[in-house]
């Protein structure tokens, strides 16, 4: 299994531990990755606020680069995945629009036929890799740990662009992988809601209310940790958690793990190798429950 790997800006920027843990985990799954160094940012839905077509052309360029290599694309960020899924849906739904976009790409010597599959690592684990193989790659089941899932909006909505009808397992993919990993999955209503990151600068108060609400709610439901496939959610839920707790005059202290960090622990990799010392809210006491010391 080989993929054109699109890490996204944040895994290579403010969340280096995501990239680090992904690099540690993927060889153990026997997956091959070719990183797309020349691909641009997806626009993250922000550039699209100014110009949707510009975003579509940039993403079509990335898709064309993957097509040249004959590879599907793998993402590790809910936002990258969602934005690319939406762009791909627009491009493949309307042949005239695709032509127009290809016309702009032509001068770069590129053309996109509309055939590329873009998949989040989370989906790949279940859809391409398969539950049985995943189970056999895990050496250290994480029993006794209570973990709450947190998806990130873009991996849940809009369901049409994310093809939930064709892949019904996507709606609850995170819980499924967490079950396989061996943790007790803590269900709570906030798991598919917004982390508040997009409005951090425009309305910090509301953004912090969201962080505090979801992390405290997960804790109230008994979670020792929270797991997310989205580095933007991680930036807010982990990096801003103390500020959010301060605003709500409460204590939270819920460690937030990236999905590959959780998988890595279940493969027996060391917390250091998984970049867990880079997480802001210390996961030490949760790891101690598993008998792991940092």
């Amino acid at each position, binding site marked *: 299994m080989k993929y054109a790997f699109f890490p996204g800006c944040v895994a290579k920027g403010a969340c280096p531990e995501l990239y680090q843990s992904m690099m540690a985990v993927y060889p153990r799954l026997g997956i091959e990755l070719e990183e797309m160094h020349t691909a641009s940012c997806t626009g993250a839905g922000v550039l699209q606020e100014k110009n949707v077509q*510009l975003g579509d052309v940039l993403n079509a360029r990335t898709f064309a680069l993957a097509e040249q290599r004959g590879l599907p694309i793998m993402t590790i960020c809910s936002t990258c995945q969602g934005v690319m899924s939406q762009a791909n849906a627009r491009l493949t739904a309307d042949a005239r629009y695709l032509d127009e976009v290809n016309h*702009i790409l032509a001068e770069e010597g590129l053309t996109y036929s509309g055939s590329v599959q873009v998949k989040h690592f989370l989906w790949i684990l279940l859809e391409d890799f398969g539950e049985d193989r995943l189970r056999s790659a895990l050496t250290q089941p994480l029993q006794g740990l209570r973990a709450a899932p947190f998806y990130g909006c873009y991996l849940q*909505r*809009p369901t049409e662009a994310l093809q939930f009808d064709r892949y019904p397992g996507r709606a609850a993919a995170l819980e499924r992988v967490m079950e396989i990993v061996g943790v007790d999955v803590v269900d709570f209503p906030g798991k598919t809601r917004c982390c508040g990151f997009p409005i951090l600068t*425009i*309305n910090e108060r509301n953004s912090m209310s969201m962080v505090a609400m979801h992390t405290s709610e997960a804790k109230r439901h008994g979670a020792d940790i929270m797991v997310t496939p989205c580095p933007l959610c991680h930036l807010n839920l982990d*990096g801003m958690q103390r500020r959010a707790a301060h605003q709500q005059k409460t204590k939270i202290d819920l460690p937030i793990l990236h999905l590959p960090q959780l998988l890595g622990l279940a493969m027996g990799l060391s917390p250091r190798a998984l970049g867990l010392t880079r997480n802001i809210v210390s996961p030490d006491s949760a790891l101690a429950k598993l008998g792991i010391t940092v």
Partner: protein
Amino acid sequence: MHTILRVRRFNPESPNPAPYDQEYVLDLEPSETVLDGLLKIRETVDDSLTLRCSCRGAICGSCGMRINGHAMLACKTKIVTVAPHGGLIRVEPMSNMPVIKDLVTDMEPFWQKIRQVEPWLQPEGPPPETEYVVPQAAMQHLTGVMACIMCGVCVSDCTVWEVDSTFLGPAALAKAYRFVADPRDAATMRRLLALNQPTGMWDCTRCMECVEVCPKHVAPMDRIMALRAKGMSARVPSTCGSRHAEVFTDIIRQKGRLDEPLLAVKTLGLRNWGRLLSMLPLAIQSFIHRKLPPSGPLHRAIPGIRSIRRIFARVEKRS
């Protein structure tokens, strides 16, 4: 099909008013709707069950409620889509508005926001002798927003409204777009300036809940994004929201990928000392945890950046 409707009940006139769940076991056809089930309960089991409905055909907008955790129209929701093999269906009143009784909510907060955007046409000058003449495409473009039936479903599930009830919300913002984009309306700039204020178009967090739940495919969030684009091109005074979009786009043009610290600083604005200072502890925290990303000249463009810049130039020239 054996179905259990677990209904959230609330009676303000009971001695100790508090919400509670009550389960009703029914035999329903897969093609029947949740509303059919609730009416069956009211007619044959429990006539105290209170709910609102009228058209039973997804037109009047009165039967919005939360079904299995998401707001939808009960009359448009078939049993088979929420419980394909029968079993439990959770039915609750809409969120983000006060509950009057059982499944009936007080829509006043919803209407108040709708009124706030002045949802009527404000043309300039004397009216034409016959009708207003507008390009067909312009009005066709608006039919999507005009399909709104004011059901409140989007507001129920809006993630920002949940934490801040001063937010204008998806339905009112979509309604505002309907007039901002109407070629006959002359109050465009005044409307955009009002929407540019706190609680307006920049407060939406782009969670797409409203797009997902709207039974009429109004796609409120897409309208909010269109309002933002109109605001930016009309040069309404910049906000953190508009600077975020402008600076983000500029950084991608220059580097092909995000320079996060630069984005934060330029979004907040170099003269915004208070906010910049409040970000300092976060930068220090990132530095200590060895995750402060390189920025400015230390942050290099992607290989192939020339291609990105050419694409920018070409697309921007076209639009």
